[in-house]
């Protein structure tokens, strides 16, 4: 399967080689925006195309990444050294390198704070 990054960059860019990729991206965008009308339309479109099971599981995956992103960015999680070079093309294609949340792999910090309690 040839997969590209169009759906990662937006639902108007095509499926990116992933079945229903654009509709999945639309679900994620609707959840992010929180507009009830668009959310209902996105749910209906994906349900019509792929079924209610897929729609519910898609909502669950997107919700999971509202969790993971907050864990990563709330704790200052740096990129793993082993994935830095490997992810360079993705970061470039998806225009991620300018994010405020960019934290490249780094050496150990000074243990300025321990488990204080």
């Amino acid at each position: 399967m040839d997969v590209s990054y169009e759906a990662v960059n937006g639902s108007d860019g095509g499926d990116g080689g992933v079945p229903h990729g654009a509709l999945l991206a639309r679900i994620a965008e609707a959840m992010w925006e929180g507009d009830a009308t668009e959310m209902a339309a996105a749910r209906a479109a994906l349900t019509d195309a792929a079924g209610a099971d897929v729609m519910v599981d898609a909502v669950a995956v997107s919700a999971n990444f509202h969790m993971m992103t907050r864990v990563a960015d709330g704790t200052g999680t740096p990129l793993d050294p082993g994935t830095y070079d490997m992810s360079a093309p993705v970061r470039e294609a998806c225009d991620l390198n300018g994010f405020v949340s960019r934290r490249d792999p780094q050496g150990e910090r000074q243990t300025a704070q321990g488990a204080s309690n």
Partner: protein
Amino acid sequence: MSIAAPQRTYDTGLPIRDDLGAAHGEIAARWSRPGTWWTGEQRAEIVRQVRAARDHRTDDGGALPPWVQPSGIEGLVDADGPLPAAAADAVWRITNHPGTLTEDWYQSIIDRGVDPLAYVELVGLVAQSNCVDRFADALELPRIELDEPADGPPGREGAPAAVKYHWVPTADIKMPNVIKALSAVPAENEALFILSDAQYVPMERVRGDVVSDRNSLTRPQIEVLAARTSKLNECFY
């Protein structure tokens, strides 16, 4: 980790898997119990503040901007409530603007008196409630009601931890950095695993198995959703 037998968390005709409903029910039940560093009352208040942060709209219809602390605005955060103002401010900022967080911001919260390990638990709770509530909201289901907070002190039984690669203290475990992130408070890391197992891919398979399908989705479909959501949240990781 263990979850009780599947329970009916959501009353709906939608095909929500039993394991997913059970995971949400289990996590929501923990929100009102004493945690590692916060009481049950404080943990429940953290979830209430997540909900308040998500539901609040400014005059222009948007979320409170990242540079505004809700504790400084009358009526948003109860000054006499169970949470320190700095904790409430952190909840709102992590909820609405996770992509804007910096180490200086984190340090400002710690400097206002929030213990680093209590902060780790707070991040876990904020992340969980964003996950569970956003799922319900997207499907137009009622958010899970909070139980009456259970009495009792926090357990204060974290893992040995130190600041190493993250802003926060982490335990010395060999795992991807995002799984280490909450490792100083094992109960919150367990909660992360429970939700991820039900909604994404079991943590131990995230990198070891990148081809298997999961429930009704193929792995490429799962990763489109994960990547698109992460980009919308401006998450570099």
